[in-house]
């Protein structure tokens, strides 16, 4: 299943789009790229990458646990990430003014999650694709039902971000001043974690649980190094994530290696180039 690359890009595009599974993968990838890069932009600004990483680790027990009791894996992703986000929001609320206690609580949750995922996997040997697929992603076997579910989750997440966009921005930058202005900072912290959970669950289905950061961190972090303006920064973040997904999926299709590898490498290369050029300009 390794079609060769032709000199004509249009022919290649046709080759890509002739299989429904590839169309599904591209649709799902596009949806996921937009969601992850927007939520990721706020996550990088809020310095909550560790929380994001933990949520992505929670996707693993979610998927294996769901498979164990016979539920669809994608439902497992959403339930596990959503529940972990709520739990993390709860533990961080009393200390929300300083994020000191948060990392310890999150670290604890993370280890338990990973261990539980491994347990579920050993209890059930028929998980499709094995742990590699769940951890490092696939573009095979994404059906139209999953794409529709991704679209619904993405629209809900993006609509929520659109509503809280500015209060979330000011409470991410200066929580104390935001509180004094009457912004419900604690509530926004909780809402953001939940949105992050949903975005991670969606992204995991393409990139795998461990490579979520290729879309969640690399494009926003690069965008924030390229422009300081919030609006253009978000747009740029989306554009970079789309580029990573499309190129990654196409490259995976024409080669024997999985898309997660390409997306992660592209994200890393992008971040490296942006950081180096920025340092050189100083």
């Amino acid at each position: 299943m390794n079609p060769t690359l032709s000199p004509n890009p249009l022919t290649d595009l046709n080759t890509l789009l002739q299989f429904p599974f590839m169309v599904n993968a591209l649709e799902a990838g596009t949806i996921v790229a937009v969601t992850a890069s927007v939520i990721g932009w706020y996550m990088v600004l809020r310095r909550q990458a560790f929380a994001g990483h933990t949520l992505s680790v929670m996707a693993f027990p979610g998927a294996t646990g769901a498979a164990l009791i016979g539920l669809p894996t994608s439902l497992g992703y959403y339930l596990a990430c959503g529940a972990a986000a709520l739990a993390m929001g709860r533990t961080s609320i009393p200390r929300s003014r300083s994020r000191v206690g948060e990392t310890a609580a999150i670290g604890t949750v993370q280890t338990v999650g990973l261990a539980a995922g491994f347990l579920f996997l050993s209890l059930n040997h028929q998980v499709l694709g094995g742990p590699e697929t769940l951890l490092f992603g696939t573009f095979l076997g994404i059906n139209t039902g999953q794409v529709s579910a991704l679209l619904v989750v993405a629209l809900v997440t993006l609509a929520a971000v659109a509503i809280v966009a500015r209060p979330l921005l000011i409470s991410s930058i200066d929580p104390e001043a935001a509180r004094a202005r009457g912004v419900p900072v604690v509530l926004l912290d909780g809402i953001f974690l939940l949105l992050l959970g949903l975005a991670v669950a969606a992204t995991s289905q393409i990139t795998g649980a461990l490579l979520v950061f290729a879309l969640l961190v690399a494009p926003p972090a690069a965008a924030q190094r390229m422009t300081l303006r919030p609006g253009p920064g978000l747009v740029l973040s989306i554009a970079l994530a789309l580029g990573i997904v499309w190129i990654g999926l196409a490259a995976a299709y024409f080669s024997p290696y999985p898309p997660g590898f390409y997306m992660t490498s592209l994200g890393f290369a992008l971040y490296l180039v942006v950081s180096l050029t920025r340092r050189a300009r100083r």
Partner: protein
Amino acid sequence: MTAIRISGAGVRLGGRTILSDIDLEIGAGELTAVLGPNGAGKSTLMRAILGLVPLAAGSIEVLGRSPVAARRRIGYLPQRQTLQRSLPIRGIDLVRLGLDGTRWGLPIPLTARARARRHAEAERALQAIEVVGATSYAERPFGEVSGGEQQRLLIAQALVGDPEILILDEPLDGLDLPSQAALAALLRSVCDRRGMTALLVAHDVNPLLGYLDRAVYLGGGHALAGTVDEVITAPKLSALYGAPIDVLRSADGRLVVVGAPEAPHHHGGRHGTP
């Protein structure tokens, strides 16, 4: 006219009494410094005026209303360590958030009226930046300008909503002496021009001498209020602490408070000396 009226106010946090029996009246248009050693409850008093910490006793009235109801008419600059100093954002965007940061929905103007409003808001942000003298570096990354420049931008953010009261928590902290003097003069002129009431927490009264209408001195959980010369005297401070305190005055008029006990949990004794 009274802008802030505090009667018999007390605050307990985590089982400890931070403030008790505080009685204060701050007149409209006055520039007041809130002084006292570390851990005296200066920030807590500011947070109580903003309705961010509950009162254990007494009451606080701001502009004739409850602190929470008056919040939107107060510009507030929290103590500086609460803000990440290397934010990937421009100063002008930060100032702008002081105006529309609390608004829900996307800032995409669809009607002519919305466009006009956004335009007017951009103007106001530029004006506030001009008032604090930050025009030349407002477009630069916030994390790359100096401490004094950051402080001016943050004051512009607190000013941009045209507040009736400005509360600044340690705005002079960490600035060099010329910047402290310039900022004190700036605050005085803003108060005079806008008829604004300003309350600023300070460690050291000396950079502010000559600009203040009044001083509030916190110590041992209680407060003294009056002009600087009335409040910072040996008998008054000795009575406040219940221990002998000396106030020394240098040849150039600087005040040094000697012997004030520090609260148990603070770090470093920077009080009093310039």
